[in-house]
């Protein structure tokens, strides 16, 4: 019963934080509340037997998105406070949303309580996947095509953000973000420790590791360290691209190595080598994710050299 009480409190807190974040006048408050919301969300997920997801959510909700939003806030001094909205402006969307919510809730009540049949299939095939952690198996073997495309999406976001990255303003405009990162740094180290510890019993995801690495890199970068980490550097580009490139090349190699009597299937790893292949991919994907995210957060200071190249 006490657990139900805890759940209720957590849910109410989540709703309150989200609502407050949406309704608060000041954008700074909204971002703060959103970060708190992200942390609470991570807690809820940990409660729901998804600790690795909770870790990722904390890294994103608290770390990455927070840092990104603060740096965006620092850049835009304009209209941080919203003009008050009139009642009709609020009422109509609210009515629409409440109606929609009613529909969705009614539909969701019909959800069956049994888990997907895929769980059993995935468990059965786990031994053939080359890894012991089912989520990793799904990510990098059963549904590796999704993961590959996801890496492409990440790369695309970077490619999209780089040319539009605003030129860096004065150093003072970073102060808010900077202080925030300083605050964040110990937490990142703490979480990284957890990841390492968890990795012993269950292979840690490339993504979590990547995010943590990126968080560290961002902090260092903002303190004027790691200045070589920029898009103009060929080796950085190589690093960013390597995640996908290794993935594809390994897949092609696997396709090529398939014995003649077996049907060649895209992205299928030879069972004996699967563990090694997945590890290889994970390592490079981690590095690529870390460098991509760092570049995304830091933004390009846009030296002259890069400008001419992009024209």
């Amino acid at each position, binding site marked *: 019963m006490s657990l139900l009480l805890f759940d209720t409190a957590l849910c109410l807190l989540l709703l309150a934080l989200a609502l407050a974040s949406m309704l608060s006048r000041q954008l700074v408050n909204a971002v703060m509340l959103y970060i708190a919301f992200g942390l609470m969300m991570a807690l809820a997920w940990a409660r729901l037997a998804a600790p690795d997801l909770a870790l990722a959510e904390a890294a994103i909700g608290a770390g990455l998105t927070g840092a990104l939003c603060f740096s965006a806030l620092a850049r835009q001094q304009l209209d941080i406070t919203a003009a008050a909205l009139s009642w009709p402006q609020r009422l109509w969307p609210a009515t629409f*949303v409440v109606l929609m919510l009613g529909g969705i809730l009614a539909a969701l009540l019909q959800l069956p309580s049994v888990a997907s049949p895929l769980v059993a299939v995935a468990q059965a095939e786990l031994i053939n996947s080359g890894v012991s952690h089912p989520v990793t198996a799904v990510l990098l073997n059963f549904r590796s095509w999704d993961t590959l495309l996801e890496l492409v999406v990440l790369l695309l976001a970077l490619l*999209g953000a780089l040319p*539009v990255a605003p030129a860096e303003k004065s150093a003072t405009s970073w102060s808010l973000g900077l202080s925030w990162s300083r605050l964040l740094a110990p937490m990142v180290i703490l979480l990284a420790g957890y990841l390492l510890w968890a990795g012993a019993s269950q292979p840690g995801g490339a993504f979590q590791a990547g995010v943590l690495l990126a968080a560290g890199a961002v902090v260092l970068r903002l303190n004027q360290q790691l200045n070589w980490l920029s898009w103009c550097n060929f080796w950085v580009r190589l690093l960013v691209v390597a995640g996908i490139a290794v993935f594809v090349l390994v897949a092609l190699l696997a396709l090529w190595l398939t014995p003649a009597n077996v049907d060649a299937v895209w992205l299928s790893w030879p069972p004996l080598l699967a563990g090694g292949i997945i590890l290889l991919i994970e390592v490079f994907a981690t590095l690529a994710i870390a460098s991509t995210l760092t570049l995304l957060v830091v933004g390009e200071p846009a030296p002259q050299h890069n400008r001419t190249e992009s024209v």
Partner: protein
Amino acid sequence: MTELSMTELSPQLLLYIATAACLFAIGVYGFIVGPQTLRRILALNIISAGIFMLMVVLAYRGLANGQARASPDPVLHALILTGLVVAVSATAFALALLGRLKQTQASPEHQP
């Protein structure tokens, strides 16, 4: 009667599902009303958080039911991880665009 209870969700799960749906709704409201772009980006993140939460709950179903194998649905967890990366990529891109927009609006040469 037993069949019915098989398909019914426990109150805890219902609570979390309802919370997820409400988060989605709050996000949609924020997205529609805005008015600042940054807030709409936050709203999108709340929407995605709601959806991911729903997925986490769905993955948890088997455990809550006390079914034989005690592990949450790995497929859903993998989907959530993929979704998280996609969401954060999109957010980062949107924020970069927003930054550029504010800069062009602020610089005097673009003032009408």
